């Protein structure tokens, strides 16, 4: 029996290759996640990083709706942010968002599907190439990633695919853009329903130049609702929004600021 257990452990080691050395919690992880080692390797590689409250992650500590867990990332307390990665250590698909703010503020809100209790983290890359990692634990009954999207219970969901609602709000020195796109955002983990999700969202100025870019993954919730902010000082008159899903559908519209 003991021999068999050792053999199994050895096989697991082989399957995971060089990762085995980094698996498990690390003493410095404030969330004491069993999967932090792998998350660090997968998302940050060998780059320097620090756990940092300046990257604030606001979300409920318990997920009431496993298919729509809201979160808001705010990294404006860092001086310069090149990129923000959002991921959940214990979701079957870890990556949620990969945000390149560009001329947008390093602020972002969205919703994700939670499969079980997990840390939700945001890692912000500063101008010196160092990652700043914030996050919190979200408790959950679970099942959000393997349940079919509600759209599949509607007869006409394809007719409204990609419909985009958008509205702009004035917030102290910034314009806040909230937009919602009708899309099932299928993870591919619900039986018989292949992965079908928006992969990319680009915000552009009137000249078509990119303001900021967001790569979105399967765990982003159905009919995703995104919140972006851009400095009022940019003096933009309109913003173009362009989304593309993994089936090549492109949805675009403009909004006047």
């Amino acid at each position, binding site marked *: *029996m003991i021999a068999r257990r050792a053999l199994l452990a050895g096989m697991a080691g082989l399957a995971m290759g060089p990762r085995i050395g980094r698996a498990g919690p690390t003493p410095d992880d404030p969330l004491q996640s069993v999967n932090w080692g792998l998350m660090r390797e997968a998302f940050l590689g060998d780059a320097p990083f620090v756990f940092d409250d300046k990257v604030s992650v*606001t*979300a*409920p500590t*318990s*997920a*009431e*709706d496993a298919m*729509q867990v*809201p*979160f*808001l990332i705010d990294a404006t307390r860092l001086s310069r942010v090149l990129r923000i990665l959002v991921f959940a250590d214990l979701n079957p698909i870890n990556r949620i968002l990969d945000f390149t703010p560009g001329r947008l503020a390093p602020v972002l*809100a969205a*919703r994700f599907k939670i499969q079980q209790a997990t840390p939700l983290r945001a890692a912000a890359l500063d101008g010196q190439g160092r990652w700043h990692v914030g996050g919190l634990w979200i408790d959950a*009954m679970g*099942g959000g990633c393997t349940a079919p999207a509600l759209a599949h219970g509607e007869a006409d969901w394809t007719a409204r695919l990609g419909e985009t*609602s*958008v*509205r702009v*709000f004035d*917030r102290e020195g910034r314009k*806040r853009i*909230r*937009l*919602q796109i009708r899309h099932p955002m299928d993870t591919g983990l619900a039986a018989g329903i292949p992965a079908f999700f928006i992969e990319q969202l680009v915000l552009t100025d009137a000249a078509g130049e990119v303001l900021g870019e967001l790569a979105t993954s399967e765990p982003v919730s159905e009919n995703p*609702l995104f*919140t972006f902010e851009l400095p009022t000082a940019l003096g933009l008159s309109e913003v173009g929004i362009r989304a593309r899903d993994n089936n090549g559908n492109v949805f675009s519209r403009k*909004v006047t600021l």
Partner: protein
Amino acid sequence: MKRAAFALGLALLASPPALAFDYALRAEKIAEDTYLVPGRMEHFTRANGGNIVNTAFVVTGDGVVVIDSGPSLDYGRQLRALIATVTDRPIRLVLVTHAHPDHYLGDGAFADVPVAALPATRAEIEAMPGAILDGIYRLVGDAMAGTSSEPPRESVAPGPMTIGGHDFELIALDGHTAADLAVLDRTTGVLFAGDLAFLARTPTTPQADIDRWLAALVRLRALSPLLIVPGHGPAAPPPAALDQTEAYLRWLKQTLGAAAAEGRDAAEILALPLPPEFAGLAVAREEFARTVAHLYPAFERAVLSDD
């Protein structure tokens, strides 16, 4: 080693079943023939076994009318045993006020007597996803053993119903869920409001429609009861539970509407300060966070779609 494990397995199989969770239920006489079995003003926990709810019973000349059966099979059994300490009359009818698990999962203990609800409540329980029960098992644990979710077998219609010298009025409302049954005992003046009324405990909103709930409260006021038994919280003369529930619902509607109009995200409003009159209610912060998940998306959609 294998043999030892096998022997241990046999020993486990042979051991007597675990003792049932002890709910320590007590019946509080609140009017002639009328008893309240108060629950804790908490969330589901292992320590409370899911007993976060009020159940009640009326001992009529023709048997006992039970209002709601509680959160688990064992609760239902212990409620039945408690009733037997008060009267030796049989159970005549169990009324389920609405399709929330803490109110009807004790039905299994009343399989030999009529258990009834509004038709829409029966349909809601029929359609209840198994995940709801899984969630309660996860929170409550062993006290849920043997509990299953079955729709009541019989329907009741709104209107008068006289049993054993008590003139009941059944009132079909909605707003807390798609179907909420209120029961007025005209003989004693006691109104069993189900979860249309909360007192000293924050209202829950998983299936709530605020406007319809407010309309239901108007109907309850018009009944002019002498005493109101809320679904959660102490029994008290009107208008305490009705006023508190109404004020909270109005505040929710105003607050969530204003937040959506300002473009706030759900994650941001979780931490909004609660006004002093609600901050002191039991489980206020937790229920507000749940309500944001239940109700805020519709407020957001309304603001986003009128561009």
